[in-house]
């Protein structure tokens, strides 16, 4: 079923492409603490890849490595078949990696619209003079990007709160705004850190829908951390399981679900 280079076709008939990103033997240490120990796995183009594991397993740290916030102590991230050189997080973002955060990291002092617009900063490059005069390129860019952003706002159904400062929003909406901000960057790979934590089922359903649609409509590759097994099992194409820094499983939801190590370390009971 899985051809190493050409990708594969999922049960519901989606074509998954070749390897987009590959973690090779990643180890991460904080002082004496080993947060990640020699982990390797890959993410294919167009795929929804889940990372699961108990609290403190190193999932978020892994995401932080992918997005350049942490530098691995050993090992490297390969992107499109070549090792990615050491770079600052903003350069990683400019390569097309966007993400959301486990503890919401919105810009609290700004409105929803402005927050989502910041997601498009990577696409805007008018000069300071043009911006100061609100003339020429800056103005055109502003309008063009605003249109793009409005599309995303429509897509995520947050029109009504466009002009609200995000500080005032309830948790679930904040998560959605964060997703909007990430999507605004039009990333080739989207990293979601517990996008559905703190939501009820109805909201999780909505969020699932958005994730699936992003994946479908824009062909965005998605890596996702989530503790709700229902969501993980239903949405993801392949799952990596981490446990205290080690990889204990990797495969389709079904494979993982039946892996005894995974059940012992994480699931507790079979889901």
């Amino acid at each position, binding site marked *: 079923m899985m051809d190493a280079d050409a990708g594969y076709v999922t049960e*519901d008939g989606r074509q998954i492409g070749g390897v987009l990103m590959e973690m090779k033997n990643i180890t991460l240490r*904080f002082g004496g*603490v080993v947060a990640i120990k020699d982990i390797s796995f890959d993410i294919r183009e167009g795929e929804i890849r889940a990372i699961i*594991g*108990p*609290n*403190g397993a190193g999932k978020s740290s892994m995401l932080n490595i992918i997005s350049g916030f942490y530098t691995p102590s050993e090992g490297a991230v390969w992107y499109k078949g070549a090792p990615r050189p050491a770079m600052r997080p903003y350069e990683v973002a400019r390569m097309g990696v966007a993400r959301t955060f*486990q*503890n919401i990291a919105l810009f609290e002092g700004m409105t929803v619209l402005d927050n989502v617009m910041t997601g498009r900063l990577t696409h805007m490059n008018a000069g300071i003079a043009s911006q100061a005069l609100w003339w020429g390129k800056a103005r055109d860019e502003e309008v063009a990007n605003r249109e793009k952003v409005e599309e995303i706002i429509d897509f995520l*159904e947050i029109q009504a709160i466009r002009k609200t400062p995000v500080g*005032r*929003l*309830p*948790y*679930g*909406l904040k998560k959605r705004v964060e997703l909007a901000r990430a999507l605004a960057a039009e990333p080739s790979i989207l990293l979601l850190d*517990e996008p559905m*934590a*703190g*939501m*009820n*089922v*109805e*909201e*999780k*359903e*909505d969020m*699932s*829908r958005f994730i*699936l649609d992003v994946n479908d409509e824009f062909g965005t590759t998605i890596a996702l951390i989530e*503790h*709700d*097994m*229902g*969501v993980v099992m*239903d*949405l993801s194409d392949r799952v990596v399981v981490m446990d205290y820094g080690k990889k204990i499983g990797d495969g389709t939801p079904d494979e993982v679900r039946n892996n005894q190590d995974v059940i012992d370390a*994480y*699931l*507790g009971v079979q*889901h």
Partner: protein
Amino acid sequence: MLDAGRTGETLLEVNNIEVIYNHVILVLKGVSLSVPKGGITALLGGNGAGKTTTLKAISNLLHSERGEVTKGSVMYKGERVQDLDPAALVKKGVIQVMEGRHCFEHLTVEENLMTGAYTRHDGRGAIDADLQMVYDYFPRLKERRKSQAGYTSGGEQQMVAIGRALMSRPECVLLDEPSMGLAPQLVEQIFEIVKSVNENEGVTFLLAEQNTNVALRYAHHGYILESGRVVMDGSAADLRENPDVKEFYLGMSDEGRKSFRDVRSYRRRKRWLS
């Protein structure tokens, strides 16, 4: 057993409270609840429904967020507690575990737990005994007791927060989203602990939860909050059987559990008015 809590007297009563933030944002529009002594009461509802606000209104933590209770009253053991400061309320036995953990980052795990005993004056021995009890409930914390809380994982921080509350020897714990961000196994574990604390120590719990499924399995009684109003309440067992609750909060359709892949429409209509 499930209805154990319902029979006792009422410990905490919230009468028709209204809460306004920043003098302009009306969030609770008349919420009433009663929490029976010795029970576990769940406060359910979507994001922004006002669960956290309700809990903070009870524990008087609204003030520092520029919120205030403008109408209604909160009674604890028949006594009006609205004008007490949070510390006084803790002394009376009501303690809140805040949403999002809120550990003292720079204190060690053990120091965090010890701050829970701040209001107690019953001697070193009793406090040490309780510390031991918390470590018994959460062995993981014992392992990490010398680490700075800021560097522990999400689950560990949640345990610290709950353990810290227990250290005050509370009669009533207001627990805000204990399951958020926790691995499934841990969620069960934490609820198990809540249950055993409830049964063994007789502590009353009022818990706000998104995870309706688990909450209704452990609670005796539930309230559903939407847009600042209570829209439904009843025993946990009744709520679990309610078709709307099933569809919207438990994610079950008539045919059983739906796959998240199969949800097609974003908006569905509820049968009650909010």
